[in-house]
């Protein structure tokens, strides 16, 4: 390429290409956690394990009509296992509900300060009566398993903070990423589990609750 006399020097173009490539590589590295993770969900899980995702204290209405502020940093509970539901959901939420039921039974045999929380992201439809019906369907014990709905704006804020995205599934319902979210007493997201991995979620929550000072 250099044997022909160029009418103009090539270095500005080479410099331009170098800068472009550097910007491209830096941008890709930035959004892929150093060329390792190529989906938002895997990136979010990596961020959770690094403790980078923090949920603000969340005011919510429980299925018995009472109000509570979650992960406000008090003494207990030290670990929350949070899933996101909407009570009209015919499929995933119901199977997750039965997994929560099994976790509830496991927790009943131990004294670990682990709190199960099912949060509705459908405040428009999920009122106290709907939550109470869901609680009764899944035999939720009010002390161990809170089924709650925050205000619409707070719900949006929480989903944003944790990187949970609910999209219409085309059948009148929703689908969202992640299933069981382990949060510590201060609302920091520690780990995300799929539905089937509830035993691991439970072990991790118990470890977190036990290990916390």
């Amino acid at each position, binding site marked *: 390429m250099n044997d022909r006399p160029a009418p103009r020097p090539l270095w500005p173009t080479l410099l*331009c290409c170098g800068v472009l*490539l550097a910007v491209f590589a830096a941008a*890709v590295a930035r*959004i*892929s956690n150093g060329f390792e993770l190529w989906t938002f969900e895997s990136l979010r899980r990596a961020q959770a394990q690094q403790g980078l995702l923090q949920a603000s204290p969340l005011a919510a209405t429980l299925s018995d009509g009472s109000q509570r502020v979650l992960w406000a940093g008090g003494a207990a509970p030290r670990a929350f296992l949070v899933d996101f539901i909407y009570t009209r959901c015919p499929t995933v939420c119901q199977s997750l509900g039965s997994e929560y039921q099994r976790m509830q039974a496991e927790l009943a045999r131990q004294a670990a300060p682990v709190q199960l929380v099912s949060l509705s992201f459908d405040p428009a439809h999920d009122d106290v009566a709907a939550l109470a019906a869901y609680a009764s369907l899944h035999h939720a014990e009010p002390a161990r398993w809170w089924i709650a709905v925050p205000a619409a704006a707070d719900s949006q804020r929480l989903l944003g903070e944790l990187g949970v995205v609910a999209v219409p599934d085309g059948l009148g319902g929703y*689908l*969202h990423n992640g299933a069981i979210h382990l949060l510590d007493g201060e609302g920091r997201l520690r780990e995300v589990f799929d539905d089937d991995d509830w035993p691991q979620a439970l072990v991790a929550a118990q470890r977190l609750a036990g290990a916390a000072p």
Partner: protein
Amino acid sequence: MHRPSHLRIAVLAVAAPLLLAPPLRHLLEASMALHMLLELPLLLAVGWAAASLGPRAVDGASRWDAEGLSSALLVLVTSAFWMLPVALDLALLSPWIALAKALNWLAAGAVLARALQRWRRELRLFVLFNLAWMMATAGLLYRESDSRLCVNYLVDQQWWAGTGLLGGAVLLGALAIRMAMDEPMAA
């Protein structure tokens, strides 16, 4: 190639509101295939039309784009970047990334409008084949994946986007082959 300026005005008049009005944009972005195969090319077209409507400046940029190398690289890296699933998701979740996406594609279009005349036949072929290869690879990956690659899109949308990318790849590949078979134009 000469194009009447009312074509450019039409591109701007149709595409700009579609891309700027949030409800219309969200309509496009609700589908992965439309997001990738309509919105991104439209942004490129708007950048192109806007730049070619403006006064034709002295060709000073060619100093930074000898033989069209920089502009070709810009088109290739822009296309590669916005085929990453995480980039598509972030463009929907972060307003800053959404802005970066729009500026990136507008800039690529604007640069291309001025730079394409500097591209020699070999470079055009190289870029076309590269784009076709990239789109085919991404399209196959999107079609084959059983799990959701984007948190904003469902698996069947992913399949359609992959199919669309494959179609685009075939189209660009065919264009490149046709161009390769044509006699090179005399300089």
